[in-house]
């Protein structure tokens, strides 16, 4: 809505500006035209010059040759009246022009027309010089105003301009308001569309076509959103279903394998084989539940508990559990917690965070079969807790690193198992960030940053 108001205020201002500019241009053109016309009038000989070129010698009037040409070119006829109103000289005088005039006659035609001939008069030493033009060739008009008024022009001309500007703004505002009213529901519709709401605008009025298009787009967006959700849901429930169905047969495999493994009547080699079946079944179990968790995290269907917890305590517990569960001697896990991080708090799901940390430790163990030293450090930064887990093993392959850091789809990570993907997803669900990289020595390092409470 803000942008609409901005657009409209700009529209009003520019409309007013255009009106004012047009007004000024027109006035200027008028002025230029008037001046030009005046100049045209003065081109060649004026009435006075022509009158003066009529000279009398010994009772005979002669017109200078140049003046004669001028009269033929610009006017039609000319005559000279004496003081009693009698024509004493004429040139090309038409037949319908009288030869004798009374004072009222003269007063009348001197300003206007003589028998519809536009005429001009000039005082001649012997009387009145009259120049006539062809009928209908000139339009005569005289301007007259009070002197005071003429002086006020300097004030009223700018005032008129201002008044015009104001009128332009008001008119533009009026039209803008109409446009605004028409656009307002459309703008609101687009805003609602961005918020994934259903939009149904009235399709009447000037912008009906636009409203129809917006309605259509909104309907399409809603359908697409629903289809996407359905697909995500279907995928998650499908995975959940498959993992559910695998669990019962796997229970039987694990149960019987474990019983065979513990059966003292069996030869040790057979028991060892049963042990392998049991261990591999346990791996499948982990895989199934990882797959399930990863798909739920990916589509935001995993509930995240929000408890206040101390990461230092959690870390010590996870590592102690690892060491207590009989970690091979070739592996060591060291925990170092900075003084300021000892009592740092974060909000999160303890179970999931525990899983993230143990997945990282498991990853180091699994990919360094010759053993390695795993180090875990915790520091408190500005508003976050920084957890570093690094080892002195082989490090991540380059392609895996790219995959992990680019945060693609789950589908993009086939090679490195789901463990690290889950770590990234869990941290993301806690609004933290994960960075996977290799140290200069070639071993891997994972840095997790979680917002501190």
């Amino acid at each position, binding site marked *: 809505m803000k942008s609409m108001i901005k657009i409209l205020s700009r529209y009003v201002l520019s409309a007013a500006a255009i009106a004012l500019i047009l007004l000024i241009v027109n006035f200027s053109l008028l002025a230029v035209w008037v001046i030009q016309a005046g100049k045209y009038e003065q081109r060649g000989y004026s009435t006075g010059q022509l009158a003066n070129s009529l000279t009398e010698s010994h009772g005979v009037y002669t017109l200078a040759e140049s003046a004669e040409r001028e009269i033929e070119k610009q006017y039609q006829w000319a005559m000279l009246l004496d003081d009693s109103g009698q024509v004493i000289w004429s040139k090309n005088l038409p037949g319908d022009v009288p030869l004798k005039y009374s004072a009222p006659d003269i007063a009348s035609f001197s300003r206007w027309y003589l028998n519809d001939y536009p005429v001009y008069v000039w005082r001649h030493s012997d009387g009145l010089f009259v120049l006539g033009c062809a009928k209908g060739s000139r339009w005569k008009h005289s301007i007259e105003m009070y002197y005071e008024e003429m002086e006020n022009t300097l004030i009223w001309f700018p005032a008129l301009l201002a008044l015009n500007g104001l009128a332009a703004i008001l008119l533009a505002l009026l039209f803008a308001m109409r446009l605004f009213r028409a656009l307002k529901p459309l703008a609101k519709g687009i805003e609602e569309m961005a918020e994934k709401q259903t939009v149904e605008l009235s399709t009447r009025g000037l912008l009906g076509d636009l409203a129809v298009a917006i309605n259509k787009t909104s309907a399409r967006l809603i359908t697409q959103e629903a289809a996407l959700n359905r697909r995500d849901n279907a995928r998650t429930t499908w995975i959940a279903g498959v993992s559910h169905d695998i669990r019962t047969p796997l229970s*039987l495999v*694990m*149960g019987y394998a474990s019983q065979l493994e513990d059966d003292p009547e069996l030869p040790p080699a057979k028991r060892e084989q049963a042990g392998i079946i049991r261990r591999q079944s*346990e791996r499948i179990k982990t895989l199934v539940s990882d797959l399930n968790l990863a798909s739920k995290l990916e589509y935001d269907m995993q509930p995240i508990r929000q408890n206040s917890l101390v990461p230092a305590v959690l870390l010590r*517990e996870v590592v102690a559990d690892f060491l*207590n569960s009989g970690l091979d001697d070739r592996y060591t896990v060291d925990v170092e917690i900075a003084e300021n991080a*000892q*009592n740092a708090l974060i909000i999160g799901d303890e179970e999931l965070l525990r899983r993230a940390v143990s997945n990282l430790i498991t990853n180091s163990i699994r990919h360094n079969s010759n053993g390695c030293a795993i180090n875990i450090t915790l520091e408190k930064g500005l508003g976050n807790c920084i957890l570093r887990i690094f080892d002195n093993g082989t490090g991540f392959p380059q392609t895996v690193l790219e995959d992990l850091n680019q945060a693609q789809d789950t589908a993009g990570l086939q090679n490195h198992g789901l463990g690290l993907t889950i770590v990234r997803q869990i941290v993301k669900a806690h609004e933290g960030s994960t960075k996977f990289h290799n140290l200069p020595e070639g071993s891997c390092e994972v840095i997790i940053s979680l917002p501190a409470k």
Partner: protein
Amino acid sequence: MGMVMNMKNIFDCKLLLVDDEPELRRMVNEILRKEGYAKIICAADCQQARELFSSEKPDGVILDVSLPDGDGFALMREFRALSAVPVLFLSARDEDENRLLGLGLGADDYITKPFLPRELTLRLRAVLTRAYFPIVLKQSQKPAFRLGGTEVDFNSGAVTSNKGQLTLTAKEFALLEKLYENRGSIVTGDSLCQAAWGDDLYGYENTLMVHIRRLREKIEPEPSAPRYLLTVRGLGYKLTGAERK
């Protein structure tokens, strides 16, 4: 529950196993019989389970969450309305875990499928013991154990060695008891502080260190070079070499 009085141990418990998978019922039945439970009855669905529950009055129920004709949680609520029978859930979905933890259904414990036989028998034992022999356990003798030439008796709180007889203070007792319960395993500083002071490690680092040093002076032949109460850097402590008397 009516049999509590003439029950000598948990193996006298009559168990009701409810699962729709016949193969799984057979396996669990075998596992339980091998463990020593003699009275086991099986049901394949809610209907059968209800009938057996009212006719046989079992002392413990192992219950699958998803049954063909109903929900294991609902079935448990029905049972609980009739008696306080302990229930151990078998669940095949991770999602059930949230319901079990979140809804406070009062299930005694749960196991996610697939499980190892040992997991099942341990959990079941714990659930039944808690339900039928809780007081007996508390009244029973506390353990006494030997660390090399040193004897520790939790009944008297006395440590006997060639240095003579020393008595453990309350905090030392709490710490040593926690360490002994988890003997052979690392116990985090946080767990130890929870046991002794009811709080996490933060703020108790030095106090814990002082108490451990005093404890070593009492139980270690050479306190400066501990052999039994070991420090695990960054994590906590570990008690090794304890032999139960």
